């Protein structure tokens, strides 16, 4: 995970936010596995170790006493579906025993600042329509429906 931005660790009352590195991947996979019910270490290795200049990826982690409490991963994508460059949040997760403590909000704010550093001024994400909890989190951070609508079709029809 080669850093593409320069983020100094940000100290908060109960935790510190810093750039993630390769040593964090096992814990990131654990936190995601705990939340999603699917442990996918290989996916996180591929995702976080293979960042490219064309598609800069940022992983930030929240840490307390050398234990990760949560993480957020974002990527800057340009001209996808005709959209001007924007930052995508494609993963955010917090350990169940660290929720409701502002970890995800701080991570999202730090990621948004990193996106600005990379020259983008819009942040997007995609949320399952039935996942009201995660949607409520993004909405509580001021995010609203954007100009795009996801469409899909079963290919075996």
């Amino acid at each position, binding site marked *: 995970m080669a850093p593409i931005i320069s983020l100094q660790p940000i100290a908060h009352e109960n935790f510190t936010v810093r750039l993630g590195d390769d040593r964090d991947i096992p814990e990131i996979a654990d936190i995601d596995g705990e939340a999603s019910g699917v442990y996918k270490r290989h996916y996180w290795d591929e995702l976080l170790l293979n960042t490219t200049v064309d598609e800069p990826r940022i992983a930030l982690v929240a840490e307390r006493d050398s234990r990760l409490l949560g993480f957020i991963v974002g990527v800057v994508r340009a001209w996808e579906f005709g959209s001007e460059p924007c930052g995508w949040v494609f993963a955010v997760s917090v350990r169940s025993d660290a929720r409701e403590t502002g970890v995800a909000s701080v991570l999202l704010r730090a990621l948004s600042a990193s996106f600005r550093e990379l020259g983008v001024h819009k942040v997007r994400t995609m949320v399952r*329509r*039935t996942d*009201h909890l995660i*949607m*409520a989190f993004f*909405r*509580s951070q*001021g995010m609203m*429906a954007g100009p795009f609508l996801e469409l899909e079709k079963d290919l075996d029809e």
Partner: protein
Amino acid sequence: MNLHKATRFALYAILDLAEAPDRQVSGAEIAKRYDISTNHLAKVLRTLGRAGLVEAVRGAGGGYRFVGNARRTTLLDVIELFEDIRPISSGQRQPGDSTPAGQTLVKVLDEIEEIAHATFASITLETMLRLIEDTRRHQAAESAGSMSVPAGSGAV
């Protein structure tokens, strides 16, 4: 997408009260602020009271106050006290529903309803209050901007 009158009144009232939970506000004050009927609002406030979201405070300086949890109560929680916004397919059958055109139309309408449902279910009163504050700031900035237009710059 539109909401019944009672639902809108309920949302206005609960947002007004949730903005300052320590404050007691009379129904007449809320009705005046939103230019709505006091009688209609009184009925709405009774429903909100039965749902445990507001509490009537009696006596001098009495009124209503918010007693719910603004971080946990969503717009959907309030809306469902006054109207049903379940997907059309789970509601009453309409003439023509069983035809291919009817079934396809229900599918399209369900898509719209599902998005509306998800939107209402994911916006808490706390989030609404933040959005309202943003709107206030924008309005204030716009009105400050329009007041600072230099003299003589108007249309000719």
